[in-house]
């Protein structure tokens, strides 16, 4: 970690960019991890990766969940959807292979036709990739407001290790001029490499993972490089942040990432949702941030580092502003959705997630 960093490493917009509004969504059903263990292993063998995961209902998908999160973000932003210049949805479970999620979400929330509305794909960091693009659109002055969403109804093969955690949920962010924001995104930094840790081929229902690639060369390498390089370039240490949020495929990975970067358990506590909602893939870092904004105070700095397989991480430094106190009460908080909970068994889960073939 002694090499010199390139100049202008940080992505810093010309015009300061803020979070104007944010909104989360978690569906109501919960599948306890012990249920997956019961069906495939006759009960828990050793520790389970999480307590339970959130499962979308029969009538929910990335489009419907994005609509609700976006409506929450609009309520906090206090702007009309017509003012948006981009509606971007990042996900690895877009309902259509070809037909944008963004146009339907835009129409449902009342946005006008004068927008960018492409969908984003980068495994679990598709949402934060859209967030970086929104920073660019707003920060360059090309558009005043942009909506970036990370949302998933995550896939995991029945019986696979991922089935314990692959969950549904995510969050939406409206970016705009920093002076209107409830928080400022001071800068971001992304670190990527071609890493074969996890993939899903076209037409394949379930993803494959590259065994030992999942941990060290993929998740930990990219998260720690993105986080440490951002902090070095910014001249900060973990002590300068009130909170940190890391991509959370299970409970242990973000805890270890925090330790490696010098963060305490208390700093990641509000944003560590994977134990109770699972891994919401492209939604995971985004909803961890929404839960953190729900409790943050003006003046707090938050470090967010996402991770997407294939592989890469986006890191953001966020400074919470005065408007947070008033605006967070204008929509459902992340924990309100988590408190709405109906436990289901594996059979109901299999039906809700389309794992029972009827014809």
């Amino acid at each position, binding site marked *: 970690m002694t090499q010199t960093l390139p100049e202008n490493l940080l992505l810093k917009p010309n015009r300061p960019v803020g979070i104007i509004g944010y909104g989360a969504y978690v569906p*109501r059903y919960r599948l306890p991890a012990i249920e997956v263990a019961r069906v495939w292993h006759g009960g828990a063998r050793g520790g389970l990766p999480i307590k339970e995961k959130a499962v979308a*209902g*029969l*009538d*929910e*998908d990335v*489009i*419907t969940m994005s*609509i*609700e999160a976006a409506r929450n973000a609009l309520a906090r932003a206090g702007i009309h959807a017509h003012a948006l210049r981009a509606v971007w949805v990042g996900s690895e479970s877009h*309902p*259509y292979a070809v037909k944008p999620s963004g146009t*339907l979400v835009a*129409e*449902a*929330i*009342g946005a006008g036709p004068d927008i960018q509305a492409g969908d984003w794909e980068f495994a679990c960091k598709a949402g934060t990739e859209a967030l970086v693009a929104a920073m660019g659109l707003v920060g360059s002055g090309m558009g005043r407001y942009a909506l970036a969403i990370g949302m998933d109804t995550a896939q995991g093969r029945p019986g696979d290790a991922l089935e314990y955690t692959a969950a549904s949920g995510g969050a939406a962010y409206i970016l705009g001029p920093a002076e209107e924001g409830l928080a400022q995104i001071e800068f971001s930094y992304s670190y990527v490499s071609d890493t074969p840790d996890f993939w899903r081929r076209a037409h394949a229902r379930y993803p494959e993972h590259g065994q030992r690639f999942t941990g060290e060369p993929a998740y930990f390498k990219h998260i720690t490089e993105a986080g440490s390089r951002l902090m070095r370039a910014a001249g900060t240490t973990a002590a300068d942040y009130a909170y940190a949020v890391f991509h959370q495929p299970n409970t242990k990975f973000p805890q270890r990432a925090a330790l490696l970067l010098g963060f305490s358990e208390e700093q990641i506590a509000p944003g560590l949702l994977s134990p109770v909602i699972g891994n919401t893939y492209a939604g995971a870092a985004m909803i961890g941030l929404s839960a953190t904004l729900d409790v943050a105070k003006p003046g707090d700095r938050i470090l967010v580092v996402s991770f997407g397989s294939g592989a890469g991480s986006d890191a953001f430094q966020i400074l919470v502003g005065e408007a947070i106190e008033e605006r*967070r*009460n*204008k*929509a*459902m*908080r992340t924990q*309100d*959705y988590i*408190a*709405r909970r*109906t436990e289901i068994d594996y059979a109901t889960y299999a039906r809700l997630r389309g794992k029972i073939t*009827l014809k």
Partner: protein
Amino acid sequence: MEVPRHWRLKQQRYALVGEVCPHCEGKIFPPRDVCPHCGGEAKTPYTFSGKGTVYSYTIMHDAPAGYDENVPYTVALVKLEEGPMVTAQLTDLDEQGVQIGMPVEMVTRRIRQDGDERGLLVYGYKFRPMIAGAR
């Protein structure tokens, strides 16, 4: 295939967009361009709040074609706070089930697919029990 119809009805279905009468201020859903209260022309779009109460309901065990994968489900007459009554599915019901007078709120959900798995996905309004929480 009913693609033209789904396209034509998308605004009212996705976001409960009806009309408001410029003469008597009556709120109209679904939009019909003529006010049912005063008979005047009414073409001004109006987005409903989505809040309402259950007026009556029934549970569907034998569903029409296209809805059969969702049985059993609940269909209700929902009295919107602005006045009109709409027929819609209820969703996200908990162990408490449904009661007449129960407060509900609109959500946009996947209603069905048009035909088989190659067909268009049809989205529209449903109502769910009001969630406790900040608002």
